[in-house]
């Protein structure tokens, strides 16, 4: 919207509109360690929709069944201020132990896994296999006219592979969502275990 239009709305709405400082959105991978309770995931997702934040990718799974700890990873976009607010809002949730902004570290490892189904015969099939090969993807199942390849890697690499396979008979894609980790000596998971031992 034009600035003038925004001003006019502010004039009559009785709500101050936060100033736009022109800062662009950046993409962030946020990893949360959470208590594995009913509703934890719903609470996280609910927070994103209620506060108008973006969810570009989501993955969640139990990482310590005995202690009931799960890991939720969300890829989101926003200005630094918004990302900081998202982190604090998430940390305020009762069942969240901690939130780690993986994108903030240069020692990050960010990976996805995808299963890709190709429907192709003859030359197209050969070409698809060659491309998959060059991406170090491998075939995990094959049938007469379709086969499935598995690839893991950085999100961009997977996107590229998918776009290359598209004209050759792409018949389906399933992705796990992003997983991210920082390779530093500090480990939030160990911290939680230590804390639990103490109490």
């Amino acid at each position: 919207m034009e600035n003038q239009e925004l001003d006019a709305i502010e004039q009559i709405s009785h709500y101050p509109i936060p100033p736009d400082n022109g800062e662009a959105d950046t993409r962030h991978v946020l990893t949360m360690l959470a208590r594995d309770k009913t509703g934890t995931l719903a609470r996280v997702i609910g927070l994103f929709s209620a506060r108008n934040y973006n969810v570009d990718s989501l993955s969640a799974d139990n990482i310590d069944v005995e202690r009931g700890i799960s890991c939720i990873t969300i890829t989101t976009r926003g200005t630094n201020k918004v990302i900081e607010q998202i982190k604090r809002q998430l940390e305020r949730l009762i069942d969240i132990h901690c939130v780690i902004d993986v994108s903030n570290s240069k020692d990050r490892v960010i990976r996805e896994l995808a299963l890709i189904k190709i429907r192709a015969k003859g030359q197209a099939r050969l070409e698809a296999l060659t491309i998959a090969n060059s991406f170090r993807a491998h075939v995990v199942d094959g049938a007469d006219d379709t086969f499935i390849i598995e690839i893991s890697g950085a999100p961009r690499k997977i996107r590229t592979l998918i776009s290359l396979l598209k004209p050759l008979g792409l018949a389906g894609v399933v992705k796990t969502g992003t997983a991210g980790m920082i390779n530093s000596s500090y480990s939030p998971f160990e911290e939680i275990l230590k804390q639990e031992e103490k109490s």
Partner: protein
Amino acid sequence: MANKKMLNGAEILLQSLKDCGVDTIFGYPGGAVLPIYDAIYNDEHFKHILVRHEQGAAHAAEGYARSTGKLGVILVTSGPGVTNAITGLTDALLDSVPVLCISGQVPTALIGTDAFQEADATGLTRSCTKHNYLVKDVNEVEETVKQGIQIATTGRPGPVLIDFPKDIQLAKTEYNDSKKSYIPSYHPKAKPDLDKIQQAIDLMENAVKPVFYTGGGIINSGAKASKTLVELVKATGFPITNTLLGLGAYPGEDEQFLGMLGMHGTYEANMAMHGCDVLINIGARFDDRVTGRIEAFAPFAKKIHIDIDQTSIDKNIAVDIGIIGDAAEILLEMKKIWDKKSIKSQDKKLKPWWDQINTWREKDSLGYIQDNEDIKPQYAIDRLYQKIKEKDFYITTEVGQHQMWAAQYIKFPTPHRFMTSGGLGTMGYGLPAAVGVQVAHPDSLVIDVAGEASIQMTMQEISTAVQYNLPLKVFIINNKWMGMVRQWQELNHGCRYSESYSDALPDFVKLAEAYGAKGLRAEKLSELDGVIDEMIAHKGPVIVDILVTKQENCFPMIPSGAAHNEMILNEDPIPETSEEGLAKV
């Protein structure tokens, strides 16, 4: 097994509440909570207040909690019971009130089958509670209740809901009597950063135009916080303003108090906010009703923000020093450092600032003219205050102009005296809240300052007051308009008064009598004092209908899209009501 008694889930719930110090419950029965009601029937310990609507239960619990600093507890049935309570839970979330809601649920095996009176209570309340639970095993009841209470009452307080299926209420187990509830991922009390406190004091020491801006966080933090705040304000000699929810944390009649700030705050409070060089926010959240236009908010100030909730800091307004922690703890630390530094009297340095503030005060922004026999609403509230100020009084309000006038004209000497719906702005809050306040303080004077429109939203709770002989007073400022809506339509929508006039109103005096309460009315100025006296003197519940001038606006006011220094005052010209505007009234 041998020496421990087996209890059912309902009994375990009551025992756990008892262990946590709960003795009062506001509730309404229904099929899915009958086992709990059955357990209460035999229990001498609990005082159960039967409300007339579950929204009323929630607001009553809020009133109880806010006037005591303790937890408020409500008990409602499944389905419509819990959906009716949702407005009150949301209200408690926005105003940080510790409330525990126990809701009945259909038996576990029927959850998800659209059973009779089934509603997804945890789903519905996920975004209006601080936390919620669905209990799936009778062995979890005790722990869940104790955790729920811990969550509701610690850190930034808020509502917690526990959804309790009927089969679990009936299943039996032993009571463990566990003393501590531990939630590994919940850390409500951050240790404040001492370096930042030191930096804050340095800023304050060098300030020439400082102002304290404090909110409900002081009151929630407890008596020590208010006491230390007063000491610090006195030691520094700084001026102080309070938010709507913070009123009473600092004595309202004190010289250093500038009154409330924000949209309908005093001229001096808002001008001080605009002109200050150091702003010390403690336990307030830079709410949009307070900030006005964001770019123009306190443009010359270094900003210090102290809050127990990390999400409040830098959310609406970027600050220079943000300190996360409990207000009382941080205030004590600030006071200690201030004293230790033996900072010499600031009086001389602050004199020009106080001189400036006093010229703003001379504007008398709360002034009004009561010139004939028609009662001005401001005058009615002012008179009410004059008559109660020496008494032990508590005020609740509904929402609208009367609410703002109550906040402007009634001065609160101590915290916990003023209960109003700030964040959600819930019409219908005041009467049930007054029920809760009066239950907690049976011998005090409890008054709901109401509007004729708001009161009709939860009117039926007067019946609760009659049943329990709660001598609360409903003081209706009757202008026949949804006055606040009319005011905005006048100022922002070309005087087109769309649907803001109540062409039919009940006779509030007869209504009071129909409920078994006392009804009084003042139509002329000469009747006002007598009616207020009679209201105060009457030992039971009273509804008072004060007919006031109909078109009064609430001033001063920060208009939409404006800054603190662009307030409109009472004397400023306002547009005439057009023929077109009134055509449909």
